[in-house]
């Protein structure tokens, strides 16, 4: 399987109270569990990212529960207000329990 690589786009700097847009993408097949292997005719087992969470300095910003209907290489975009300088942490949870994470710092100025 291709290596799972999380990517996020977060502004490096913002003013207190600014609303910033955050984009995230992770390479993942999001195997729905409904496709059949064309050669063997057997169902390919489900393997998806079932949860995406972003936290800012430990406080939950967004928490998305995902079903197989989310496309492969799940992409999410959302907006948040910057209360202070800090670290935003992103976590993707796989069906097999693996957690992929990435952190980005946001400075004030």
């Amino acid at each position, binding site marked *: 399987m291709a290596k799972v690589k999380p990517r996020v786009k977060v502004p490096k700097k913002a003013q207190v109270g600014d609303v910033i847009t955050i984009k995230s993408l992770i390479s993942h097949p999001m195997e729905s569990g409904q496709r059949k292997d064309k050669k063997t005719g057997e169902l390919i087992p489900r393997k998806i990212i079932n949860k995406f969470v972003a936290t800012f300095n430990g406080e939950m910003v967004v928490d998305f529960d995902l*079903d197989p209907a989310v496309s492969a290489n799940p992409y999410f975009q*959302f907006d948040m207000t910057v209360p202070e300088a800090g670290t935003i942490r992103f976590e993707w949870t796989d069906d097999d329990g693996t957690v992929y994470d990435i952190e980005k710092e946001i400075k004030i100025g």
Partner: protein
Amino acid sequence: MELTRRDALLLGAGAVAASVLPQPLFAAEPTLDELIAAFTEGAEVKDGGVDIGAPEIAENGNTVPVDVSAEGATSILLLAGGNPSPGVATFHFGKLAVPSASTRIRLAQTQDIVAVAKLSDGSYVKASRAVKVTIGGCGG
């Protein structure tokens, strides 16, 4: 296994009951209405108040860009009733987040996508939007 006359009658009765019921008893996937009811815990759902952004015609059902937003929402449930399994995603928003999100979803066929939002006052609103799909997106 020996099939007695009593067993045979029971089996027949079961088969008749299963065919008469509108929803198949053995369906593994919850229906759209069941998912909405589970999300709202049976509360009344008003129409409007949720914006769904989606293309009118999606050429590729494998990645349909969709954005949902609802003023004052704490959670938004996104559903696609025409998919083999109607659940798409549930978005929960913290205090720092603006209650809107964009993502890309799979749509198996032309259908209405439904978004139900839970507002901070505990009420629920919903909206739906039709999307035409020219190539379905659930594998083949």
